[in-house]
């Protein structure tokens, strides 16, 4: 069982300090973007990470890929703690771990041809050159459903969905094991989103890929993930298998989140129960003690105000961070 875990996140926190003062800067507080998170991802599975803005899901994604170095904690990739690695070793490790970014316009260098973009990982990590690069590029283009004849075009000549395919091709170039998908479809039109989701699924089964799928759209996450983790203000509040989460959600935030997602069916909508959260999320700077959700929670009790709950298992692979679950 241990060997099946590809990514193991242990007690990771990412704090951004806030300084005040002009001459002698002193720290007045921390923004706790990610606060003591534990997470593990098995080989071949898709873990969905949902949360709203400020939940820390994007920051966590960046910590896992080491675009940010966590303030504390350990992240094991194939058994090795990548937070403690030297820069050069880390660069090599990157071969196994790639990212697909959110913005199909901004994540591609506008002055590089599609061919160059897609083959850059090969240039950085392998000795493949010349014809070898071209054949690999053709292969990658075909894999993501793009016409190899467009290789010499520039990003602005592709549509949004096609650019995202380029980003996927780039991520696949050096056969990674693990791909972090950071909101890969939020910037795309609805009719194109489905194309990309299907593509990601196909690639996963073809190459036995492991995905961390970060998104705020619950319907999409439910569709593509095997397990789902819900984040709120830097902490994980619930983790469960996809179907368990949607049928048996236990954390009040998860329940509210699920009820807030509108379903494209007026009949169903008319009969659904709606839980409207009151208030706004507190600022991540001055977080109240206790459970970070208690101010908006309708079930809040005394203990919730004082003590922060820990993630505990309440069912098969179903973890919740709530005193009342």
């Amino acid at each position: 069982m241990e060997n099946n875990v590809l990514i193991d996140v242990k007690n990771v926190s990412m704090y951004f300090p806030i300084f005040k003062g002009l001459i002698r800067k002193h720290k007045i507080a921390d923004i706790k973007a990610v606060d003591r998170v534990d997470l593990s991802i098995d080989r071949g599975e898709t873990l969905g990470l949902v949360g709203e803005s400020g939940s820390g899901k994007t920051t966590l994604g960046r910590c896992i890929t080491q675009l940010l170095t966590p303030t504390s904690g350990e992240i094991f990739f194939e058994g090795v703690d990548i937070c403690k690695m030297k820069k050069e070793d880390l660069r090599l490790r990157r071969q196994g771990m790639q990212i697909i970014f959110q913005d199909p316009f901004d994540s591609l260098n506008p002055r590089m041809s599609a061919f160059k973009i897609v083959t850059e990982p090969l240039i950085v990590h392998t000795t493949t050159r010349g014809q070898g690069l071209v054949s690999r590029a053709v292969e990658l283009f075909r894999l993501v459903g793009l016409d190899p004849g467009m290789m010499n075009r520039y990003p602005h000549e592709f549509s949004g969905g096609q650019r995202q395919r380029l980003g996927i091709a780039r991520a696949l170039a050096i056969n990674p094991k693990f791909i972090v998908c950071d909101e890969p479809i939020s910037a795309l039109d609805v009719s194109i989103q489905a194309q990309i989701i299907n593509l990601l699924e196909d690639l996963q089964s073809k190459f036995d890929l492991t995905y961390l799928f970060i998104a705020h759209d619950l319907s999409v996450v439910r569709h593509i993930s095997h397990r789902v983790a819900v984040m709120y203000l830097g902490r994980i509040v619930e983790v469960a298998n996809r179907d368990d989460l949607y049928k048996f959600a236990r954390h009040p935030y998860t329940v509210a989140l699920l009820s807030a997602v509108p379903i494209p069916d007026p009949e169903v909508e008319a009969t659904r129960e709606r839980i409207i959260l009151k208030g706004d999320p507190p600022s991540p700077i001055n977080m109240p003690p206790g459970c970070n959700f208690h101010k908006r929670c309708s079930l809040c009790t005394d203990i919730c105000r004082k003590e922060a709950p820990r993630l505990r298992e309440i069912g098969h692979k179903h973890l919740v961070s709530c005193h009342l679950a």
Partner: protein
Amino acid sequence: MEDTISQGETKQWSQFREVFRRVAKRKTAMLGLIIVILFLILGLFAPLIAPNNPLEHSLQHMLAKPSIDHPLGRDELGRCILSRIIYGARISLMIGLIVISIGILIGVPLGIISAYYGGKTDFIIQRFIDTMLTFPGILLALLLIAMLGVGLQNVMFAVGISTIPIYARLSRSSVLSIMGRQYIEAARSIGASDSRIILHHILPNSLSPIIVQSTLHMATAILWAAGLGFLGLGVSPPTPEWGAMLNGGRQYIRVAYHVATFPGMMIFITVLGFNLLGDGLRDALDPRLKI
């Protein structure tokens, strides 16, 4: 599943052609482009175009009015003004290119390093730039000339040095805005080294403001060289430099205005041309281009 592209999107523009198209739309920019091209032709092909030897003097013909042999007349030493103007273009071209090269080759890397590495490096380089900028450009140039002596090389060197801080600032702000883009993060996530990121990702995308600035700077460089030449601090005689020619013809303006007027006009037209082109390029290379 193969994606097919709908008809409108298959045009294969190169970015260069798109830029040219945008420039061509503004008549002033086109005028600037034409002037600049003429200037370049004059400068590059001077020996083939000039009708006479620019250095050959003939005192008996001093201040001669325009004639068929000498379409713009002769100057105070009887030399052909047209030929001197054409060779003068060559001098100005050379001055301009060297000045810009110094500015770019030193200023741009400074700006890039400053922006990319940030922190202390940025702080130190920026203070250095600030110091250079406290001197008005021409004062700095004069200062350097005072230290190094007059002469063409020193003029170019001095003016070149004084343009370094401008390019450094420009490239720094350009790089800073690029640093936040996702494709830089993507390059990092692939495992690209710093040098690769700078050369392949940052540099190509930060060139636009530098191109615009260099075009405008050509104009400035030519003007400064002319100004210094006019003050007698630039090239040494008998080199046909427009500013020096202006100086030479100054005292004869009442009797033989052509001696000073034609070089003066050339300075004006050339500087105008580069400015118009630079403005046109600035608009054409606007980020609205979505490239």
